[in-house]
């Protein structure tokens, strides 16, 4: 959501997204950075975003704007700050600044989370270290547009050019147990293309996908939503697990197939996602 547009800021919480990104970076012109920063601060203080995660995308740490962004926004305690083109050194520095602000404001230390955007060749190659740079990191967003620009290659709807980056980010995030959020699909009128692109991201292990327009939310959710059969099976696995635990069995079978830890974990994830999407 552009950070200097009141109409969008006040409606952001009711669009059905799990998280909303209030943007101080690309969606705000250079002459309005001060204005957007104050407006976003007031929106966070006054608008009831209910259970929707409030993420604020600050300006890159190398710009003159980012320190002011952090100092003003962190004091109203957003859930998360999103950091463009982040390096591990920058994230460590931001971590330190946030800790100081949290102490000054009486917030729990570490309560403001970070999501770095990986959108350079260096970032892709370094993603594991970026995630490891501090404990505040809860996910990574892959930025396909800036990445392909950095690589000097053309961005396509099919996305073959970001296949390697997607794999690398998704696996690093999984290894570090943080969320991986796929790059947005930029054609807001092509819902079939969006669906295919989201399915591709999901199949590579991404835990979510960024939407560039509210009209994309339903399509993304429909790809990520577990089917009725998947939910039913997951419930049966968890019920069987409880029974097995009562009987002291470590491994058990369901429908003639052995159920072990990976199957149980998948079932738990399915139910968790179904609950998030209010399907159970």
């Amino acid at each position, binding site marked *: 959501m552009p950070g*200097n*547009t*009141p*109409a969008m800021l*006040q409606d952001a919480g009711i669009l059905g997204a799990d998280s909303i990104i209030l943007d101080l970076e690309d969606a705000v012109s250079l002459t309005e950075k*001060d*204005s957007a920063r*104050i*407006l976003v*601060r*007031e*929106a966070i*203080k*006054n*608008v009831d975003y209910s259970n929707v995660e409030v993420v604020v995308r600050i300006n890159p740490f190398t710009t003159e704007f980012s320190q002011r962004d952090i100092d003003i926004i962190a004091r109203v305690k957003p859930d998360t700050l999103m950091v463009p083109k982040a390096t591990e050194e920058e994230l460590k520095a931001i971590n330190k600044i946030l800790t100081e602000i949290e102490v000054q404001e009486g917030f729990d230390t570490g309560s403001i989370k970070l999501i770095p955007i990986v959108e350079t060749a260096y970032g892709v190659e370094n993603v594991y270290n970026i995630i490891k740079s501090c404990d505040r990191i809860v996910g990574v967003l892959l930025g396909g547009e800036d990445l392909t620009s950095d690589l000097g290659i053309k961005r396509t709807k099919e996305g073959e050019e970001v296949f390697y980056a997607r794999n690398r980010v998704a696996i690093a995030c999984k290894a570090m147990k943080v969320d991986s959020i796929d790059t947005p699909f930029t054609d807001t009128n092509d819902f079939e293309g969006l669906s295919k692109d989201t399915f591709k991201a999901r199949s590579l292990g991404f835990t979510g996908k960024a939407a560039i327009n509210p009209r994309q939310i339903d399509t993304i959710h429909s790809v990520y939503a577990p089917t009725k059969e998947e939910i039913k099976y997951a419930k049966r696995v968890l019920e069987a697990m409880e029974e097995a635990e009562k009987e002291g069995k470590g491994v058990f079978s369901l429908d003639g197939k052995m159920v072990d830890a990976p199957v149980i974990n998948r079932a738990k994830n399915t139910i968790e996602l179904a609950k998030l999407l209010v399907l159970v």
Partner: protein
Amino acid sequence: MEINKPSKAGTMESNDIYVMLMPNPKGGIEISLHSIVMKQFGEEIERVILDTLKGFKVENIIVNAQDKGALNYTIKARIETAIKRAQ
């Protein structure tokens, strides 16, 4: 806080308010407000503008405001931005 030069903030878009601040050579606070919801919320909008000016200890100023249905937090944010730009 003194207003040293004219400044402006906000837009004429829906749910926003466009404010222009100017130093007041006569002294005191003068507010000229136009709003699409003047009848219902005119007094409330003026109150928010005055409270925000008071918060920044601004006592001599001319405020021209064109409201397009802004919520209180937006009015407050736009006035604060304009005050800071007027320094």
